[in-house]
Structure formats: C-alpha cells, structure tokens
C-alpha cells in the first residue's frame, strides 16, 4: 500500500460490486449492438459473401479453396446446402442424417467448367428461395424444430448456423483469392458468439469432458459478451465423492471473431490469442472441443 492509499473499509468491495451489477447486468456487453433476427443475420452473411464473390476476377474462381474444391466448387457446395435447407424445412427425412459434405458434393462438382457467373446466379437464387421460405414461416415458425445433416435444432438456430457457415466460407474464398479476412458485422457476430457459447458444453461432453465443469467465457470486441457455462448442473457439493470430483473451473478470454474462427476449425487453440485462468487443462480441453462444432 502506498502513502496515498488507505485501508479499504471491509464491506466496500461487496457494496461497489453489487451497485455496479445493479447499474449494468453482468454479461451484458457495452456498447450494445443492435439486435437483429436470425433471418436478417443469414441475409447479411449471404450479402457479404455475394459482394466478395462479385469482386473476384475469373482466375480466382478456379483457385483451391477447401478440401478438393476450388472457389467455384465451394460456391456449388453452398448451393447444395441451400437445397438441403429447403428440403429440411419441408420435413424431408432424407436430409436429416445426411452428411454435410457428402450430401452437397454433387452440387459442388457439377460446377466444374461452368461460367462462374452461372454458379453465382444459381447460388443467389438458392439463397433467395431459402429467404422466401423463412419469411413465409413468420416469427412463430422460427421456433419450429428442423433436422439437417445430423443436427436437430429450431429454425432460428439453423439460420445462425447458416450465417456462420457463409462467413467461414467467405473467408475461405478470400484466403484463396489473397484478400484480407472479413469479420461479420457486430449484430451478426453477436448471434454467432451466443450460439457458439450455448453449444460449447455439449461439444465438451461429446469430446470426453463429462463434467461437472464450469467455464467463465469472455469474448471481447464488438459482438462479444460473457457467459457462465456449467455442465452437469445436477452436481451437488453436499453429496460430492471421489467418483464425483469437484467441478473443473476455468476462465477463458478471447477475441470474439477469433473464437468463432476456432469454432469453425479455421484456427487451432494454440493460434487463438487467449487469456486463461483457473484450471488450464480444463480450458485447453474446452478450446479443443470448440473446434469440433465446425460443419465444414
């Protein structure tokens, strides 16, 4: 303590923290980003990809993008995904357990040798059809459960997953074309980070971290936020035993867009600029599990 410092009255810390939380709830980012609907997030992500594709020269369309696909094949893959989304909205059971890559491979390879303008127009038409179907469902329809490529989730969540995929592939294409990576606008990113945080406990359990566990996740920058995640919430300290260990607890702080790249499996945990406290093994396990959420 320096000469200018005084002993802080014992209850002042609790009083200050309580008053602060009353003035602004914990977890609430500032400045707040404008809230948008999942359909709007999907539309914005599609618009951003369309703008990127429209700016490509002809040569860029044949550059390798991901897997065995060039840029044109990747756009074909996205057209295939839109077709499957429309089928899942029509409750077609054939797409519920279909593989995300396998089911769309025909649409991808079909692009070889075509005029890129036709590929772009076909994808754009597919996006428009999806948006028309979503609009026809209305607000209440967004809560309807759908099944696609092994996922079962409300339509509103599927639209955020789709926005996520469009952004990730936009950056795959940008990378292939030697362009700088894009960051979604904060309103879109906010829905993406919230979805990723919600899915994280499930990913951790599937990755062999059954819990009980707690994670304080802080995603910084526009579109970020703070989440206190817990899995195996039934765990009771009163009945804890050797077989039911004390919950692993960790805190992870990372940039919101960087974390989404990790979740998209476009970045490794080692590459993510993060600040970890608490149980470091637990945090490392969660970050590894996060990358398994990627669809690709």
């Amino acid at each position, binding site marked *: 303590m320096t000469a200018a410092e005084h002993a802080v009255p014992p209850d002042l810390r609790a009083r200050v923290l309580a008053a602060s939380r009353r003035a602004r709830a914990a977890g609430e980012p500032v400045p707040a980003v404008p809230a948008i609907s999942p359909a709007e997030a999907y539309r914005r992500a599609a618009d951003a990809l369309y703008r990127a594709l429209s700016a490509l020269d002809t040569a860029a369309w044949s550059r390798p993008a991901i897997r065995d696909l060039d840029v044109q094949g990747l756009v074909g893959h996205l057209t295939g995904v839109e077709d499957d989304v429309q089928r899942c909205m029509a409750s077609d059971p054939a797409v519920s357990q279909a593989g995300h890559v396998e089911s769309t491979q025909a649409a991808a390879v079909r692009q070889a040798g075509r005029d890129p303008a036709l590929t772009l127009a076909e994808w754009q038409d597919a996006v428009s059809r999806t948006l028309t179907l979503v609009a026809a469902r209305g607000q209440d329809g967004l809560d309807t459960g759908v099944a696609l490529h092994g996922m079962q989730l409300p339509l509103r969540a599927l639209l955020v997953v789709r926005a996520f995929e469009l952004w990730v592939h936009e950056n795959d294409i940008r990378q292939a074309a030697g362009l700088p990576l894009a960051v979604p606008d904060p309103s879109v990113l906010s829905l993406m980070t919230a979805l990723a945080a919600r899915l994280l406990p499930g990913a951790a359990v599937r990755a062999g971290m059954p819990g009980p566990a707690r994670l*304080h996740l802080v995603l910084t*920058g526009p579109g970020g*936020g*703070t989440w206190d995640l817990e899995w195996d919430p039934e765990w009771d300290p009163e009945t804890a035993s050797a077989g039911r260990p004390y919950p692993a607890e960790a805190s992870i702080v990372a940039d919101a867009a960087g974390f989404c790249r990790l979740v998209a499996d476009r970045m490794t945990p080692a590459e993510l600029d993060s600040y970890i406290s608490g149980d470091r093994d637990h945090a490392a396990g969660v970050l590894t599990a996060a990358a398994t959420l990627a669809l690709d």
Partner: protein
Amino acid sequence: MGGTDALLAARLAAGDDHALAEVFDRFGAAVYGAAAYVVGTGAGAQDVVQDVFVELWCHPDRYDPDSGSLRGYLMLLARHRAVDAMRSELRRIARQERHYRLSSDERPPSPGEQVLSAHLASEVRAAIQRLPAAQRQVIELAYFEGMTCREVASAVGIPEGTVKSRLRLAHAKLEAVLDRQLLEAP
C-alpha cells in the same frame, strides 16, 4: 492479448464482472485514498469510490488504454468526483444558510434541526474562518454569494486561474470539516 489495462478494459466492455472485481482488488485502495484525501475517510469517500467503479463498469469505453494507465484514469475520476461531492456539499450548506437567513417567517426548524444545522453551520464557519484570508474570500464569494469563478475573479481583481487554485487549496483544507456526520446531514 493486449496489455493488461487494455485487456481489462476489453473484458469490462464484454460484461465480465470478474474483471471488475480484479480492477477493484488492484486499484480500490488507491481510489479510496484519492477520494479520502479530498472528502475525508468517511461515507463520502465510499460514495465516491462506488461512483467511480459504477462509472467504469457502465462506460468502460470512456477509458482509452492508449491515453494512459487504468490506475491513472481511475485516480483522475476519483479526484473529480470527490471535488464535485465537496462542492455539492458546500453549496447545500450555503443554500441552507441563505434559506434560514431569508425565511425567518417560515416554519421554524425543529429543536433537533436547529441543533444540527447550528452545529453544521458553526463547524463550516469555523473551518472557513481558519482559512487564509485570500482563500476565505474566494470561498465566501463562490459559495455564499453564489458567484461564478469569473465573477469572483472580476470582484477580487485576480485572474480566474488564481481563483480556481485558491478554491482547490481551500477545498483541501475544508475536507477535515466534511466528515461523515456532515455528509449524512439532511
């Protein structure tokens, strides 16, 4: 990630209340010290500390890590808030004084109020009387006559900056008077 202060600011903006607790643990004593230096070690200083941290929590974007340290920002905020608190208290006392002077036909204060206000007023008056003449003059003109710094400067014939520095010196000396009892007075 960025430097410690920049990281704390980013965490606060993301709504990380753990970061707020960390900032308090790191700088709470210094902020309390800065507040107590001006308003004394009482409830007033605690109010200032609360104001400073609520301000930081609600508006973390007002702190720019490129412009200086978080500690420096909080200390500056604490000094401003403490001086504001002292000015506000002095104005309140001056208003009360004027009110009792000008409204002798209104309901007389209760015996309790009389005792309390007389006690407060005499405490403040005594403290002001102990100030050097130059400081006492600017305090009386600013708070008891309600003049602005510019008006005081003109009335006394000194630069406005000198008025402000004399007020600051006077505030520092009066802080001993504004103890917990005074600040909590109705």
